[in-house]
């Protein structure tokens, strides 16, 4: 979430006799691949179903290109703010909608495209997503959709999330969680009340908003004992 920066601070102490001058940044070689490529941090859409990660994190998501927002600081994300914003800037009020990879939608005057991606890490780093697309990384709203296939009805499970900075999550059209305020992406930062995953397909929709800092999130389900739910599969449809 790194933010803008400080340091206009050229202190007078640097002028003290006998002190070495303030060093400029040394030459710093680029250490890795800097190309704008989705494949660095994500696998591209694959067909079929996939199990969650080792700790139950859902790494496969349909992600909409970021909706640009003018956001100076993340402390503005009150419950009222994000509920209103996610309602206004929604791509569809039909929460059973599952977009397809490559679909285009319009939010306001912004034409945006869906991507079906699978994160290579437990979390889904949207900063990397924006970098890959060469889009601005800050002041952004993302829509997310994924489909969970449960082999049987699962009662008393909880959806959990951590995100930077604020988000809302719906399961089968019902609001499950709200993460308001200036949050960090912390595993299990918020858990839903007890939910039921029905047998078969369950649609998760998420909306995430972030001003400065590294937009990022992670989502999983926990069972009654607080253990990760792993006997589910994830698909894009």
């Amino acid at each position, binding site marked *: *979430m*790194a*933010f*803008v*920066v*400080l*340091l*206009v*601070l*050229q*202190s007078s*102490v*640097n002028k*003290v006799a*006998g*002190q*070495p*001058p*303030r*060093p*400029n*940044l*040394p030459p*710093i*070689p*680029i*250490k*890795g691949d*800097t190309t704008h490529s989705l494949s660095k941090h994500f696998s591209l859409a694959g067909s079929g179903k996939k199990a969650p990660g080792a700790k139950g994190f859902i790494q496969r998501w349909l992600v909409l290109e970021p909706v640009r927002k003018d956001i100076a*600081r*993340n*402390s503005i994300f009150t419950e009222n703010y994000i509920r209103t914003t996610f309602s206004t800037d929604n791509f569809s009020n039909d929460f059973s909608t599952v977009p397809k990879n490559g679909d285009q939608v319009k939010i306001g005057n912004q034409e945006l495209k869906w991507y079906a991606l699978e994160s290579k890490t*437990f979390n889904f780093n949207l900063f990397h997503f924006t970098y890959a697309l060469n889009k601005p990384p800050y002041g952004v709203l993302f829509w997310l959709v994924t489909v969970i296939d449960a082999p049987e009805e699962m009662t008393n499970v909880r959806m959990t999330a*951590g995100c*930077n900075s604020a988000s809302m999550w719906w399961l089968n059209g019902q609001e499950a969680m709200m993460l308001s305020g*200036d949050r*960090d*992406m*912390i*595993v*299990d*930062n918020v858990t839903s009340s007890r939910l039921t995953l029905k047998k078969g397909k369950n649609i998760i929709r998420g909306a995430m908003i972030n001003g*400065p*800092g*590294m937009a*990022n999130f*992670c989502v999983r389900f926990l069972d009654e004992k607080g253990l990760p739910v792993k006997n589910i599969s994830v698909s894009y449809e």
Partner: protein
Amino acid sequence: MKRMKITGMTALLAILFTYSLSAQVGKPFIHDPSSIVECDGKYYTFGTGGGGLISKDGWTWYGGAVRPGGGAAPDAIKIGNRYLVVYGATGGSSSHKGAILTMWNKTLDPTSPDFKYSEPIVVATSDGYEENDAIDPGIMLDPVTGRLWLSYGTYFGFIRIVELDPKTGKLKNGNKPVDVAIVCEASDLVYRDGWYYLLATHGSCCDGANSTYNVVVGRSKKVTGPYLDNVGRNMLEGGGKMVATTRGGLIGPGHFGHTIVEPGVEKMSIHYEADLAQSGRSVLGILPLLWKDGWPVAGEKFKEMTYEIESVRRGYALELAVDLTRMAGGQRGFGQPNNEPVKPVPPQELADVSKTWPTGNIAARIGDYMSRPHQQWTITDAPDSTGYLGGPYYKIVVAGTERALAATADGEVITVPAFTGAAEQLWRIDQLTDGTYRIMPKSVINAGKKLALASSGDSTPTLAEFDFSSDNSKWNLRSL
């Protein structure tokens, strides 16, 4: 750094002296203070932007420390007879391109002829693309292995740990940084009892009273991690157990530093994003550091109020050696029918008993706590401008009176009829690492050594050299 834009040198914010009971005094205005280091009897801490604070006693702080290099969030450590200062060259630039540098000095006293920093050496970098921003260094000399470790980084990606050479301050040959945490900054390392602790700051800074900074911790058996919190969550997953958070008007603690004063007495340095008592400015804070069940916890700033001073040895209370005066509320008998209406019994008041007390010096004693006036002590900041690391000297008087606790030249404790401000009536109060307290007179005439309030027997207070391993040296302060 997860910070708002700052547009001026922190030190320049320090304009007016504002006395505060709840933070350091003087002009303690600083952001991102380094660990406090003692040099030739003075305390030093360096901050963002260059420079820093100096204190003669650890309580009153003024600008004057000198650190070239600008940049942000330095740390400092004494190794052998030299001081190693480490800092980030940038303030966490929007490009996330940065470098950590180290430099040595024989002294931190800028007036000393020996004061001269060595040429800064780059020990870590971030290229602006990798998931790390090379700022916010924290440094630890492993007391077991003698190896020197640097942690650094901020919200942009990972906190990393890398090994330095304690003789040169350079990166140890061939060492590669290891990722140990995410979504935090201002990290620092502490070793204790077989555990390595990674302390870091979560939340947002630089937004005054709206800053959400807080200090969390994870621990590991290996310095390179994994660092897990109290529920087993890895700091690479955002884990962290709370160490220090906002208290009262002191908002947003961050940038942990660790100081071991002596066995059982440890302090943590931080800055508060805003001290509401001091124009909401960012100020230096020093708190006792406690250890509970193997985890560090910030102690509370000492609160001026009336206490029972309870000996840890027996659980008895420090009291005036005066006769106990019986009070109303006598026994009504057991098992007998009693249809009298139930009503409160008024507590014994000072006025009920103080006339019976001698007017001169009265000995101190330790006895069963009975909630009586001769057992209640009001502890307030003494009208004295001096202090010690993290606190002022206090006067301790019998509640409602000016009768003050005092040390005697022969190493005992008495009470005198009136507080005069003499050094033997000024008391240093340190919360110890186990949460109990040490109570020490500022000085004891002819003692030639530091003495603390102690239990000689269950009922006999005295002064003795402090021994953290003995409950005779410890006291609980129970608010009334």
